């Protein structure tokens, strides 16, 4: 691979990596929200019974 | 419109009188700007041109202005006066104009000392440079006052103000340096005038949103 090709690949890969990183961050956020919601559902259910 | 002017004048006068009595901000600004110039002398290598020194003058001006701006809303914050001011029947923009005029007065006063000091330590300044300084002062005070009002509502206000202000000040520095050491001062002065006009209008229109709850 020539130098030019290497830098070209680097530029495209950086953008790709950024999108993937974003995906990871959003997935973590969704997991956290799922956990929060489960916790709150439990809280509401206990309140409803108690 | 005369109500606006009268309110603004009254507010500016209040700030100036407060400063006259307290004598905190202006002496600090004067001392700071002269000290900064001396530091620049030691920071520049011997063979550097006048142009480099001209650039550094603008660094000194911008940071001295920041000093003044940081103090601009201090009194208000410390005594909850800003809320009271906002409740007064005057147009919010009058608060902006009044404050900006007060800061402008301090900045010009500091420059009355700084520019001769610069001419003494480095090189003479021509008329274009002086006009540039005045035009830049208008821009600095207009934008700086609004941004100071934003910052004062938050935590870490002394840290936040330079961060908010400096990117907006970059075009002013470019125009100012161009007027001081550039080849075509007229273009730089025109640019500074454009900056002042656009941002003055923007600040005038948006100030009330920044200070009302």
């Amino acid at each position, binding site marked *: 691979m020539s130098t030019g090709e290497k*830098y070209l690949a680097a530029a495209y890969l950086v953008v790709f990596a950024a999108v993937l990183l974003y995906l990871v961050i959003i997935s973590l956020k969704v997991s956290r929200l799922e956990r929060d919601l489960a916790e709150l559902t439990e809280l509401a259910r206990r309140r409803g019974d108690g | 419109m005369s109500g606006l002017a009268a309110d603004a004048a009254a507010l500016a006068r209040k700030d100036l009188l407060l400063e006259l009595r307290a004598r905190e901000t202006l002496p600090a600004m004067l001392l700071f700007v002269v000290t900064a110039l001396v530091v620049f002398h030691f920071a520049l290598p011997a063979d550097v041109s006048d142009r480099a020194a001209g650039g550094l003058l603008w660094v000194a001006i911008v940071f001295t202005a920041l000093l003044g701006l940081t103090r601009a809303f201090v009194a208000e914050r410390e005594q909850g006066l800003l809320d009271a001011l906002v409740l007064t029947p005057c147009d919010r923009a009058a608060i902006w104009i009044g404050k900006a005029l007060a800061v402008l007065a301090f900045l010009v006063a500091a420059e009355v000392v700084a520019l001769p000091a610069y001419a003494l330590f480095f090189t003479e300044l021509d008329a274009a440079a002086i006009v540039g300084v005045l035009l830049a002062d208008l821009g600095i005070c207009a934008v700086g006052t609004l941004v100071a009002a934003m*910052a004062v509502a938050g935590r870490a206000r002394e840290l936040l103000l330079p961060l908010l202000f400096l990117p907006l000040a970059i*075009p002013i520095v*470019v125009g100012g340096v161009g007027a001081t050491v550039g080849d075509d001062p007229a273009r730089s002065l025109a640019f500074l005038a454009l900056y002042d006009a656009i941002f003055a209008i923007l600040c005038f229109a948006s100030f009330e949103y*920044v200070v009302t709850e």
Partner: protein
Amino acid sequence: MSTWSRNSSWAAAVPCAAAALLLLGLGLALFWAPEDADQGISQKIFYVHVPVALTAYAGFGWGAWKALRLLWTGEERYDLESYTAVHMGTIFGVLTLVTGSIWAKVSWGVWWSWSERQLVLFLILFLFYSAYFMLRYSLDPGPRRQRSSAVYALFGVVLIPISFLAIRLAEDLIHPVVFTREGPQMSDSMFTTFCVCLAGMLALAGALYRVELAGKRIDERVRELRELLAAEPVRQHVLTEVRS
């Protein structure tokens, strides 16, 4: 009512379009678009660098538009929309700086060049919008923060042309340009490829924007729910909302 379910066909279309356009654009850029005579294959960085830059501008512009709507109507929802748009713009802005830096390195052997106007402009904007986030973190949530953020976002878009003029002024009068890169005289195939890549990037930003906005809104509602549950004995309608 979540914006997601309200226009669910829309919701699926944007990421699909983004994927399709970006894949097509990548293919065109690598295999179809002609190689530049002077710069060689590295010129093709253009197809990712410029669309990313334009998408960043679009993000800042969209954020300013939503900010204006907030100030005009006072409706709270515009605050999150403006914030998310500015966030998108900043992310793409950073990508612009990185891809631009890579391009500078391969073109001139240096990672940074003050004579690259777009790069310098984005540096200034990056600093400006980073301060936007500092502003938001520094103020407590509420109308004051919403309005100050909105005004600052508006200042940002005004700063874009003014900074550009300033950079040109600086170049002409104080910093003579050392390197220049002639913009490619775009042939039709180059232009087509560029347009596809641009559309793909904009679609990508749009898809990310919607996802992030939905995430922020859900966050808000979960917080609200938490407060409701903590504050008073549970009521029937809260139970139903939580179960659905």
